[in-house]
């Protein structure tokens, strides 16, 4: 009985709530007991507010009984990557620096979800300050992949992806700076959507790299992604980089948009380094689209393929070095007790509060912006970023979306790449250019490896054309049942 609930898509749960077949309290209890049963092994949660969640669930049931339900999300529990602010809840960014920090304010997405009646109850584990691809860089310990507990769930939104895959949550919000939603979604066999830069407000998202960060969704199905995106998208006067654009009913559009899509396949994304099993699964997905009447064309993104990772690690680290300067032990967060003077307070607090990867990136970014190096590194990286963006603009003249693998390999083993940062960085080779170009991208399940690990198909869309992108992804999902498979977790 519980199994039937916890692995159902959120849209179906919403329908059952609306039809009065289940209550919000009953639903929350199902997820709570699943979490109690499996999270000791998955370790997806940093914290959760059980009492508060139950109060909200009861309130949602009362609204529904009184005919005042706030819409499809009313009474559905949602997990938030521990980088998104909710008033009165911890906001740790999986860092010792913020281990005891409680946010005094709501992110814009939190305000929107609360208004829609969703229950914000879980704080999901992640790589510290969203820096990483495995969730091993968490100050509170790694999250495991529910499909194989000896493997990573991907990252940095690994806790959110693992919890959805493991049936601990119907859906969650993550953040994606270079692939941090799509890569863990691929590793965990779920749907991960990174919207166009500017579609979802970043207000209340603890910044890693401001020009690349974007909040997005981790869901069981494409329809759920459409449902959740509709609740959080839209212009926000508190985020200067948010964009004024019409927000369609993404869920309704899934069924309406049935074109013969023109789909590009970037030649360079199928070269050396791609695991043959992944390549085969993605090619068979491409074949599905061809047979369903879509026009498939080979395209070329030479600059994106060659330089995206290098450009990303210059721009993202530069911005991070400045964004993370506020964690200094003066106003909030970890403060060293050993400090002898002001400068020492900064040095000791940051030395104690930040983990290795965060320090590595702050040092790199500080160097990138230093006088004498700025032009050679930061400035040049920005120019190449523009060229990469232009490359996508050209390709999109003839394509509605691009198809590629999400990752070069399936989930790797815990500890396998922790000693080799460069190998870890290359895991995001297919996802990073999407952030540099500010485009929307979604990863959907497209098969399993011989050892039973999920494989992700990445679809890249045109700016602010999430309705098309999701409709294209939905067509594949309708023709397959990968998304109905669940990890045994026995």
């Amino acid at each position, binding site marked *: 009985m519980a199994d039937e609930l916890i692995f159902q898509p959120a849209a179906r749960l919403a329908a059952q709530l609306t039809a009065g077949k289940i209550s919000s309290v009953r639903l929350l209890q199902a997820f709570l007991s699943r979490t109690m049963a499996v999270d000791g092994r998955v370790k997806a949660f940093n914290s959760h507010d059980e009492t508060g969640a139950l109060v909200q669930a009861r309130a949602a049931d009362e609204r529904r009984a009184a005919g005042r339900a706030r819409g499809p999300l009313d009474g559905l529990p949602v997990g938030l990557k521990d980088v998104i602010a909710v008033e009165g809840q911890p906001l740790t960014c999986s860092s010792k620096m913020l281990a005891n920090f409680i946010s005094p304010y709501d992110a814009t997405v939190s305000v929107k979800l609360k208004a829609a009646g969703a229950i914000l109850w879980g704080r999901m584990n992640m790589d510290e300050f969203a820096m990483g691809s495995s969730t091993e860089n968490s100050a509170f310990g790694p999250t495991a992949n529910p499909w194989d507990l000896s493997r990573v769930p991907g990252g940095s939104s690994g806790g959110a992806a693992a919890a959805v895959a493991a049936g601990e949550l119907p859906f969650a919000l993550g953040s994606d700076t270079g692939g941090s939603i799509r890569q863990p979604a691929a590793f965990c066999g779920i749907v991960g959507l990174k919207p166009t830069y500017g579609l979802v407000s970043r207000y209340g998202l603890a910044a890693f790299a401001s020009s690349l960060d974007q909040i997005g969704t981790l869901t069981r199905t494409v329809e759920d992604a459409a449902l959740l995106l509709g609740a959080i998208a839209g212009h926000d006067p*508190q985020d200067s980089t948010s964009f004024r654009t019409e927000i369609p009913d993404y869920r309704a559009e899934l069924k309406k948009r049935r074109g013969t899509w023109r789909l590009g396949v970037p030649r360079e994304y199928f070269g050396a380094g791609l695991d043959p099993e992944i390549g085969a699964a993605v090619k068979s997905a491409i074949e599905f689209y061809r047979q369903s009447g879509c026009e498939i064309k080979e395209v070329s993104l030479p600059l994106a393929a060659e330089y995206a990772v290098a450009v990303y690690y210059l721009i993202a680290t530069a911005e991070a070095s400045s964004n993370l*300067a506020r964690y200094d032990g003066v*106003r909030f967060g970890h403060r060293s007790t050993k400090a002898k003077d002001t400068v020492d307070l900064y040095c000791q607090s940051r030395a104690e509060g930040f983990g290795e990867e965060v320090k590595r990136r702050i040092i790199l970014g500080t160097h990138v912006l230093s006088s004498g190096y700025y032009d050679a590194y930061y400035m040049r990286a920005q120019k190449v970023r523009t060229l990469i963006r232009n490359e996508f603009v050209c390709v999109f003249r003839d394509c509605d979306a691009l198809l590629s693998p999400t990752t070069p390999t399936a989930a790797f083993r815990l500890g396998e790449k922790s000693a080799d940062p460069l190998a870890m960085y290359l895991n995001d080779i297919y996802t990073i250019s999407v952030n540099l170009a500010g485009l929307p991208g979604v990863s959907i399940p497209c098969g399993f490896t011989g050892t039973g690990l999920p494989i992700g198909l990445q679809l890249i869309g045109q700016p602010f054309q999430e309705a098309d992108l999701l409709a294209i992804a939905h067509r594949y999902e309708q023709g397959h049942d990968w998304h109905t498979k669940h990890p045994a977790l026995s």
Partner: protein
Amino acid sequence: MKYEAAIGLEVHVQLRTASKMFTRVAAGYGAAPNTLTDPVVLALPGALPVMNKEALDKIIKAGLMLGCAIEPVCKWDRKNYFYPDSPKNYQISQYDQPICLGGTVEIELPGASRNVMGEHKKIPLTRIHLEEDVGKLNHGTGDSLVDYNRAGTPLMEIVSEPALHSADEAFAFLTSLRTTLVQGGISDCDMEKGQLRCDANISIRPVGETMLGTKVELKNLNSISFVRDGIALEIRRQSAVLEGGGFIGQETRQYDGEAGTSTAMRSKEMAHDYRYFPDPDLMPVKVDAAWQAQIRATVPELPFDRQRRFFEEYQLPYTITSVLVSDRELSDFFEETAKLSGKPQAAGNWITNDLLRELDGAKITLTDCKLRPSHLAGLLQLVEAGVISSTIAREVFAAMFLTGEAAEAIVARQDLKQSTDAGELEKWVAEAIAANPKAVAEFKAGKEQAINAVKGTVMKASKGKANPKLVDEIMRKQLGASPRPVN
């Protein structure tokens, strides 16, 4: 050897806006510590800046007043450095594309005496840019407290070329700049509240040399007279070093205005690398021609331009115009009175003498004053028409200042009209002559001034209402003297 100084000023001015530079929290002075804060001011995780349009309007207006070129795009950069008064540990500022370029500040140097106009010069500006202010550290014994109320207040930095050559010129520059900015409604420029702060870059070189000497930055010049005194001290210090065969190192010095001394703070070797880069949280803002035109329409006449116009249009003396144009409201008050009364010179005198004295005595500002230009104009017309004497006019003025009643109403109610009734005047004069035999004898003996005693008695008897001119004529007639000599 003779030395010449080259001084450039960096002036920080807080803009007068309702809210802070990048958030809607109120900007203000004197609130309880850390009450003017929010997630953005405190740089909490996830907080984002949003630009305050009023601040941009104000700096563009300042730029237009000072003749700057306004850049078509307002771009934001981060200036990275760690200090506890800076919540983000970077300051949002403008690095390579300041919103205002060039421009000048017109200054007036001290004249030969107080009532003589001094030499005017136009001091070129390098740039004006917009940034956010930092918080305030209060150092106690053993600990320091931070107040972030000031943090995030819109702050404009005005940088002059090193074109000032003396402490007096620097003093004149700041005085003129402050007057201009206050009159434009840009800032209140109260140095005690830190709304205007000044650092000076000072170098000296032998007269005739064209290369600039090594500059020393002088900080903590927190009043206009400290600016003058601190710069004078630094010029003397550098001259003494060079005279003694020494060498000026590039450094930053802290001025102590109370002690009249300065001490070294840091040398060039400790200079910061601020790692400027464009702020990715803020979009560049286009400042188009329509926006500029809208602001240009609000730019007031500059004080020195107004002074020149007052000379020409109203033939007012230097001293009176100086007082008037130092205050925009006072100048406006004057012009309205002049227009209504047609008596600009009398208006100038009444305003700069009587009105300022009454305001000072009552400790109120012109805004709160009940006496308006129409009142003063009415009074001037009554004096002009001979309805009241100038003595009575002072009484009426004082009454108007207190009550805000029209002059005519006060004159009518208190029956203060000058008397021109010949019979009444003849009677008063005859009585006065009888009462002052000694003065009359002296007058007849040729002592012209002695007649004033008689006149005083008439005025007293008439309670000041007797028309002085008619009294004079009747007096002379009764005493058989010739009419008053014209001098």
